[in-house]
């Protein structure tokens, strides 16, 4: 996952923002506790959001860390949901690095391989703990590679692989009702992430001659999308966000409800818009994605 999923922080109260910061710190501590210092480097917004979806709450404690060695900061205590989020983060990151290594040329390829090598032990441990999800992820990644080789020109088909992959997180949940709702929510979250990432990579992929379903779907060889292509892309992205919102409304997400609500009714639309207009990376640097001032 790539750091696209974030709540619209401007929609949240200072307390809610602080709670999300504590979740971010809590996931970092959990990654460190479960997988050692290397695990901490996997932390990003998407995985924090994943942790919010999976945990309805959690006790908070004041803790020091490398980023804040003197002042103790509130962090959600490691719990089952955070451990699950940490395991999923490791599995997803390892596959992402493997995929990036296969797609890239020297020297990036070597960098990705080295990073994946560092994660190998962590991956084996996570896969042992979550065999169903790890197996499912491998299958979907293989399916995606096959579609990439065929240079599949559909948006939905390759997106379906990553969507089903994330939908597989539901396999790790015990309650059948929760499984049903989450599998729909994660499917569309995965679909949205895959497509937004594909749009974001358009120029780079066009220049490198890499597979990109958005380029093939719209015949945008130069990497630039026309206005009507952007509108078609926005339509399909919005449809997935609406499905996520519809699923969100059917489950109680506890203290994280306002954060998830702000993402599925605003944050994702903002990010999608910024990516389509080619402003995402600049906006992220300037902290504009939160609506007003980005605090995390």
């Amino acid at each position, binding site marked *: 996952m790539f750091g696209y999923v974030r709540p*619209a922080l*401007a929609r949240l109260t200072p307390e809610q923002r602080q709670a999300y910061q504590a979740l971010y710190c809590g996931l970092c501590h959990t990654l460190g506790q479960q997988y050692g210092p290397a695990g901490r480097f996997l932390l990003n917004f998407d995985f924090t959001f994943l942790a919010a979806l999976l945990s309805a709450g959690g006790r908070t404690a004041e803790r020091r860390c490398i980023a804040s060695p003197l002042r103790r900061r509130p962090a959600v205590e490691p719990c089952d949901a955070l451990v699950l989020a940490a395991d999923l983060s490791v599995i997803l990151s390892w596959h992402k690095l493997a995929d990036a290594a296969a797609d890239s040329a020297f020297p990036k390829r070597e960098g990705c391989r080295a990073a994946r090598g560092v994660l190998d032990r962590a991956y084996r441990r996570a896969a042992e703990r979550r065999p169903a999800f790890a197996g499912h992820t491998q299958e979907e990644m293989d399916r995606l590679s096959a579609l990439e080789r065929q240079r599949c020109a*559909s*948006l*939905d*088909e390759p997106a*379906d692989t990553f*969507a089903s992959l994330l939908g597989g997180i539901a396999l790790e949940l015990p309650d059948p*009702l929760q499984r*049903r*709702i989450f599998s*729909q929510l994660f*499917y*569309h979250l995965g*679909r949205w992430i895959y497509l937004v990432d594909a749009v974001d990579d358009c120029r780079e992929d066009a220049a490198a001659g890499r597979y990109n379903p958005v380029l093939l*779907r719209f015949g945008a060889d130069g990497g630039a999308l026309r206005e009507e292509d*952007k*509108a*078609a*892309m*926005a*339509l*399909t*992205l*919005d*449809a*997935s*966000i*609406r*499905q996520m*919102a*519809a*699923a969100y*409304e*059917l489950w109680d997400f506890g203290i994280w409800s306002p954060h998830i*609500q702000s993402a599925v*009714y*605003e944050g994702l*639309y*903002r990010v*999608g*818009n910024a990516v*389509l207009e080619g402003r995402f990376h600049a906006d992220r640097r300037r902290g*504009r994605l939160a*609506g*007003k001032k980005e605090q995390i």
Partner: protein
Amino acid sequence: MKDPYQVLNVPSTASDEEVKKAYRELARKYHPDNYHDNPLADLAQEKMKEINEAYAEIQKMRGTGRRAGAGQGTGYSRTSQGYGGYSAAGDPAFVRVRMAIQQGDLQTAEGMLEQISTRNGEWYFLKGSICYRRGWMDEAHSCFETACSMAPDNLEYRQALERLENSGQAYRPEGFEVFTTGCGGGNLCGAMACAYCLCNLCGYGGMRFWI
């Protein structure tokens, strides 16, 4: 039965107006239109039933209901139309596909659809419905477009296409108006202009940065 006030998420001391407002908001949220062709539609329907019953119960307790079962009679209780309602008189092969879609058996529906050689508006509409349920929104859109161009007078096909295109029509909590694109055409522009005016009215200019 659950406490009806809890279901509507209002204190028991809430005024009639507040109860009504809470009921309307929830009814808008779980309205069948928001869950059309959604694999979770049955769960939303259950929620809707619970909300209607809670509202009717409160009205009964307070003696404010104008008629018996007012909650059920408000027009929000309409259940999803489903398939087979409109074009059931058509080819029995298509009717069977509709039944399979309604039962959520998409694989069977798709298999049966592929067997049908008549590629008319109905075929593309059903194909689009299967894609939509699966979450294959791009393909669903082109199928609905083809269905509409083949049968321009068919209301059901047009509604399916409009539902997919008019993201402004779907439920959002009050105050949330950002879209992936500022102008998607059709009703979306109108909805945006309206939202923009409302935003300026209440002094919140946040969305100007984005659209």
